[in-house]
């Protein structure tokens, strides 16, 4: 059994949601279908369904986040769960034992699900191995490793605009090295059958052996986005940069920043995405970010539906349970 299998039960259903790596096309599609079903709930007058009534969900955030935490919180509330928000200052404590202690305390409070964000890669996996059976763990971003709900909301947004994954050309641009989003994104796109995935970045911002994930590497923006359907810009993660990986932000923008002029190389109906928060004038020009090809705000709305989907999937499942009818 590989490490990632801990997110599946013996019938291949989602028990935790830790990574998009190694998930079958069928399961990835199922997550998108669930999200499509939940998307309608946000448009109703009473934006709430009773699926997770009586369940307690803990937002366990060891690293600052506004958008991700609030959309997880909204998703949980729209499923009628009770939500506890915990912001733990990770820098003040040494990982291992204190994390375990925090967890045991929360378990004693009989919580049903932990949404975990941590600056160490593997933190969510670590917690998933510790929790009692029946308790679900969802990875809300761990170090440089994975951010699976962000990846799924991105592919959900892509499917809404361009449903034929096999023929898609997708470019991921910018700080690939520090980006857990990029990794999860590549696994999700490849898993869903996208053949043409490109990463575009200066060599200093590319992880070693990125080609082994099945992507093509480009170091010039116009060349990389030539004829693509989707341009996914990443945030330049200044807070994660140690040492001189870049000459200057200004130069980064001149070479890799997405402007309307450079975007002409992509298909005429290409969509522009960004996981946020945006550094305007660093990786993307405001006119593009706010332009009619930008789907950045749709990504935020879709984040709620995706998070409702994975919460419902990990909770609505008992070992040996029968299949639900439509």
């Amino acid at each position, binding site marked *: 059994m590989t490490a990632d299998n801990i997110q599946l039960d013996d019938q291949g259903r989602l028990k935790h949601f830790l990574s998009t790596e190694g998930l079958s096309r069928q399961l990835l599609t199922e997550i998108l279908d669930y999200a499509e*079903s939940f998307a*309608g709930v946000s448009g109703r007058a009473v934006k709430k*369904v009773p699926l997770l009534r009586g369940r307690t969900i803990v937002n366990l955030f060891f690293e600052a986040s506004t958008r991700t935490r609030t959309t997880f919180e909204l998703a949980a509330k729209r499923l009628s769960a009770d939500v506890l928000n915990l912001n733990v200052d990770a820098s003040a404590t040494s990982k291992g034992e204190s994390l375990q202690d925090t967890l045991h305390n929360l378990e004693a409070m009989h919580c049903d699900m932990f949404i975990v964000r941590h600056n160490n890669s593997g933190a969510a996996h670590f917690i998933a191995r510790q929790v009692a059976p029946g308790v679900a763990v969802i990875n809300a971003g761990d170090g440089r490793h994975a951010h699976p709900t962000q990846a799924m909301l991105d592919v959900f947004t892509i499917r809404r605009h361009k449903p034929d994954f096999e023929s898609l050309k997708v470019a991921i641009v910018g700080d690939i090295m520090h980006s857990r989003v990029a990794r999860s994104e590549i696994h999700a796109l490849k898993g869903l059958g996208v053949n043409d995935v490109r990463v575009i970045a200066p060599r200093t911002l590319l992880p070693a052996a990125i080609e082994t994930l099945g992507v093509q590497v480009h170091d010039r923006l116009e060349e990389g986005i030539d004829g693509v359907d989707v341009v996914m810009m990443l945030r330049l993660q200044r807070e994660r940069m140690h040492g001189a990986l870049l000459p200057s932000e200004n130069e980064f923008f001149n070479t890799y920043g997405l402007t309307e002029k450079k975007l002409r190389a992509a298909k005429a109906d290409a969509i522009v995405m960004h996981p946020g928060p945006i550094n305007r004038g660093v990786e993307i020009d405001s006119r593009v970010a706010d332009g009619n090809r930008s789907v950045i705000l749709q990504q935020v709305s879709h984040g709620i539906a995706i998070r409702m989907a994975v919460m*419902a999937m990990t909770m*609505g499942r008992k070992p040996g349970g029968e299949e*639900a*009818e*439509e």
Partner: protein
Amino acid sequence: MTTIDTGEIEQFLTTMARQLEDYLVERGFGDPGIIGIHSGGVWIAQALHRALALESPLGELNIAFYRDDFSRIGMHPRVTPTNLPFEVEGRHIILVDDVLYTGRTIRAAMNEIFDYGRPASIGLAVLIDRPDARELPIQADVTGKSLHLQPNEHVKLHGPEPLALEITTTNDG
């Protein structure tokens, strides 16, 4: 396996339409909102809607998010969205389903309807009533046919064209 064919179902529908007309006249409900429960209930609701030539558009309810067995069996990934094209608040509602069995589907449906507003009343119309297996205090106001069946017998409506009822027996008791 027993099949009840379209001809017989037509007769049940005629019975339902007559009872529903009487119900509406007795209660003085002029233009009720008809809501079918996905998917069989919607087909029956469409037939009643045609038979009574009602003005208001038909509502469709999908109770997948309201089922009380969610934590046991989960839900189907593709849920046809609920669509109520009229104001529920203050409205007389006729809820339509294919088979009334334990009553749990109807409870879930009523919970969902109340999330859209406070109806003046809710009446219930079903094609098949299985009165022996109720688990909640819910009865139909309009019934096409009552069937007394064993717990290991299951009724399923196939449709929409043609409508056919299938009664199967399982060994699980």
